[in-house]
């Protein structure tokens, strides 16, 4: 028996919880005041939300046949963007991984550039490319390719840096050259990670691709933008539903494949 331990010590968590809550409220209210939020209007808009929801609950099914083409374009943009980016990321990662005996100066410059690319949001990229190449899917594909390149490269070269160096040494001692060492000592160890990251990028790109059209970079997004500006929430509902179904389906398949890979 534990002697004399009669009173249960107080939990310290409660005080902490309330101070956190108070702090949060203060932060929200001050930022609302600073940014001029009109609480009255916020309240009024709730009424409008009712109207929107009402319209959305009666989708314009005839619109499906019109947005099917753009939907395919969106998927195609995502596929091409992912493919181009991932294709480039493969040799790039093999070059810049620190354990691959590449030129140190060149690979750190390349890594630096890649990190810069990764900080640019893809919407911004797409906006720039729409300005450069004009409205259409090409701008979207390039933006998605650059985004996928950055993402897959980063994840993939970090995986390469964690491999078992033993097989590399074995290949080297058998007289293999650098490319052969990569092909038989490195790639078999990391190829499943690569496909995993490519599919992951694709999942993200499908969502991004749907949004990109909104700023004129091709695909279904432009129809979303149009329906919204025409206040046709019955059509907005159709588009959102379709995107939802496609994203879910692709995520499902992709997840199944990735489970198999690892």
């Amino acid at each position, binding site marked *: 028996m534990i002697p004399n331990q009669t009173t249960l010590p107080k939990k310290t968590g409660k005080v902490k919880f309330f101070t956190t809550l108070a702090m949060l409220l203060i932060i929200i209210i001050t930022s609302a005041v600073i940014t001029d939020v009109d609480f009255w209007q916020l309240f009024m808009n709730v009424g409008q939300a009712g109207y929107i929801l009402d319209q959305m609950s009666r989708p314009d099914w005839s619109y499906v046949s019109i947005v099917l083409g753009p939907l395919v374009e969106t998927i195609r943009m995502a596929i091409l963007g992912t493919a181009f980016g991932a294709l480039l990321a493969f040799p790039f990662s093999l070059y810049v991984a620190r354990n691959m005996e590449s030129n140190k100066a060149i690979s750190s410059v390349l890594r630096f550039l890649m990190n810069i690319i990764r900080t640019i949001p893809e919407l911004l990229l797409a906006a720039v490319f729409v300005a450069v190449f004009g409205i259409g899917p090409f701008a979207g594909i390039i933006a998605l390719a650059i985004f996928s390149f950055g993402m897959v490269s980063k994840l993939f070269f970090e995986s390469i840096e964690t491999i078992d160096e*033993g097989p590399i040494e074995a290949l080297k001692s058998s007289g*293999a*050259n650098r490319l052969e060492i990569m*092909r*038989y000592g490195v790639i078999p160890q990391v190829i499943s990670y690569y496909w995993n990251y490519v599919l992951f990028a694709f999942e993200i790109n499908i969502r991004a691709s749907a949004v990109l059209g909104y700023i004129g970079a091709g695909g279904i997004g432009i129809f979303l933008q149009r329906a919204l500006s025409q206040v046709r929430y019955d059509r907005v509902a159709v588009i959102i539903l379709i995107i939802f179904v496609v994203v879910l389906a692709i995520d499902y398949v992709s997840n199944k494949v990735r489970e198999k890979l690892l």
Partner: protein
Amino acid sequence: MATTQAIAEQRPVIQLVNVNKTYPNGVQGLKDLNLSIGQGEFVIVIGLSGAGKSTMLRSINRLNEITSGDIIIDGQSITRAKGKSLREIRRNIGMIFQSFNLVKRSSVLRNVLTGRVAYHSTLNMILGIFPKKDKEIAYEALKRVNLAEKVYTRADQLSGGQQQRVSIARALAQEPKIILADEPVASLDPITTERVMDDLLRINRDLGITVLVNLHSIELARKYGDRIIGLRGGELVFDGPTAEATDSTLRAIYGEAILEEEDNKGEA
């Protein structure tokens, strides 16, 4: 044993001439080493941890650069070889590692086939095109280490001893003149140790491949070696037929520690 000595005098396949190796941190791995190893010899290199056994073996196929001196493989200086000619010399030297160094996710056959890579054009190798003959060579090599039935098994599904025998098959697939084994049994239990050492001995006897094995254990060295080479502090301190490596001789060179070495295997 007398016969292998005689052959050794006829035709050295490995010659070390005044070899020195100083690591960048100043540690002297090898000190003025002179050695000649003949075609078909089974040589065992002994010495305490840090004696320079690995450094010596890895200098022979130039996984290590040496600081001065020369190493001559089958009449050709590997020290001065560059690019393709260096790789061609390496192709004739199979290497076996303590940690097996297999690609664990690949099949046994894939792993053994990598021993053939240096024989073909880079383009064919990138595309993964091995001639049919190579698969036969790989399969033969697996039969030699009694692992023919594991040909399509993933390497990581095998036991340590089996993995080491796959790595022997990989070295054999190179059709090498020399096999270097750096503590090949240090992470294996006594029974698998015996199988692996038996395989190495059989390869030496049947195929006439020169075998050089680094070992911790004096007992194993005596059981398998024709000739024993002793290193201490990077220097050659013993070189002679196994019969001369008696307890008292070794004790005189190394002190008591060398005879107890088996008990503390946990070495880098």
